[in-house]
């Protein structure tokens, strides 16, 4: 069995036994599962109010949910991925590289015929497989929930869009896993190892999107990108800064994939930024030297 496969397998065994990733996983799956329900409740409530308003003769406007796409019910998942999913990915990444440093098992591992890149790629592959299984399960939950809400199976086109959305989510989460893994390697203390990538995530998800936008904090919790102020210095600033916010790019990509009417533009730039974030992180990870990963913790 190749060293990469052995490391990937070991990572899956270890992930099954660790508590924090498991807790975050449960929270994530529950949130995603209820997101369709929340969408359905919103739809039902608004439709009921609309019906009563029409019956009272107070409006003749059409039901705002009449032409809504079935994928509307999955859109809250976007924000759960950016918030809980990314946090879970960081924790899993940090835990992965920190585990051997904490347990002081690195000398045993590195005395076996395994190169450092194979060791790290194996870990990443294991986590990638774990995330793929989770996202596949969540995708099935979403598909079933939407099919139940709309009283019929999701159309093949929409099913493909849903699958595409989760595929992009997998790439995004892997980028955060790599960030966590790097921090687990380079940090001298366990607390710092968690704090640094979480700070970076906060900046990417909450600070960067505000720069040059209408600076409405609530908009960050929406599953669609923040509203921009057209023209002038703010617009220019936003053009420069927005590509750096991978999470906003994910919101844009998700909106376009799931055909949200609020999101317009081309999918390619957003996808490029997300893939680039993963690629840059992976290159930094593969450039790690043997002496670096053997670095002792100061805890």
């Amino acid at each position, binding site marked *: *069995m190749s*060293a990469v496969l*052995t*490391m990937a*397998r*070991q990572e899956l*065994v*270890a992930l099954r*036994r*660790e508590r924090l990733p498991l807790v975050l996983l449960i929270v994530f799956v529950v949130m995603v599962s209820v997101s369709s329900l929340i969408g359905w409740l919103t739809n039902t409530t608004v439709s009921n109010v609309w019906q009563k308003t029409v019956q009272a003769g107070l409006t003749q406007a059409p039901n705002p949910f009449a032409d809504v796409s079935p994928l509307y019910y999955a859109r809250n998942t976007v924000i759960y991925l950016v918030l809980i999913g990314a946090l879970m990915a960081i924790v899993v990444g940090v835990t992965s590289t920190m*585990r051997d440093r904490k*347990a*002081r*098992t690195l*000398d*045993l*591992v*590195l*005395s*076996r*015929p*395994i*190169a450092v890149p194979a060791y790290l790629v194996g870990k990443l592959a294991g986590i990638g497989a774990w995330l793929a299984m989770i996202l596949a399960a969540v995708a099935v939950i979403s598909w079933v929930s939407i099919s139940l809400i709309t009283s019929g199976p999701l159309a093949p086109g929409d099913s493909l869009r849903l699958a595409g959305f989760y595929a992009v989510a997998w790439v995004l989460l892997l980028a955060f896993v790599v960030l966590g893994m790097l921090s687990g390697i380079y940090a001298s203390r366990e607390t710092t190892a968690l704090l640094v990538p979480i700070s970076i995530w906060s900046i990417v998800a909450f600070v960067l999107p505000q720069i040059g936008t209408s600076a409405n904090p609530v908009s960050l919790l929406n599953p669609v990108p923040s509203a921009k102020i057209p023209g002038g210095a703010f617009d220019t600033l936003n053009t420069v800064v927005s590509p750096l916010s991978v999470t906003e790019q994910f919101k844009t990509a998700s909106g376009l994939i799931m055909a949200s009417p609020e999101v317009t533009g081309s999918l390619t730039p957003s996808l490029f930024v997300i893939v680039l974030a993963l690629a840059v992180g992976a290159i930094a990870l593969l450039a790690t030297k*043997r*002496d670096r990963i*053997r670095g002792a913790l100061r805890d």
Partner: protein
Amino acid sequence: MTDIAIHTSGLTKSYGDKAALRDLDLTIEAGEVFGLLGHNGAGKTTTVNLLTTLLAPSSGEIHVAGVDAAVDPNQVRRVIGYLPENVQFYDNLTTMENLRFFGRLSGLSKPDGRIREVLEYLDFTGHDHERVGSFSKGMRQRVGIAQAILHEPTVLFLDEPTSGLDPEGVRQLRDVIVSLNRDLGMTIFMNTHLLSEVTKTCTSIGILRQGELAYQSSLEATLEAFPGEDSLEEIYLNIRSAPVS
């Protein structure tokens, strides 16, 4: 197949300006149990880390079982077993899960049968599905030996193997070392502080002093060469305290 298990020439390791090991020329024949002695900071662990390819030398050459460590470090890793000082495992995994991992890393595709064989050889059965986190130091050391010999290495490196063990554990480990050498013909290289263990297990010794090899000979020749000394301890202290040339 070579008769020389370990050979180093001019082996040096420096950290900045400080040399941890200087010009180590060492030859250990196959089938020996070699004990490397020296005070704390003499360079014993650095030597083992270099020989096991965990560290890259600043200069010099290393050959293990005829393989040049600079040319093919992975081949060196295939032919060696290694037990670090205070060996640690994944505490939340069982003995089997830990050993499966290290067995697979060592190239065993289906390690379970071999793991059972080794655990039986080490008289450590019945703990396969217990988590390593609940083990005593002595039990961990057994699992450590098991992971080191799973792939039937030619050369086994033990770094302070008796450190922290109770007298019973020390005796058991000594028996294991002797039987590995006798039954399986493994060359064993060990760092140790316990001179009594060296007398009971080693066939040859080396003494490191301030990063330099001050002495190397067979145990028998050493005891004969110092007729006035009662024990290896006195010989060791004499060599250690002699002025560095």
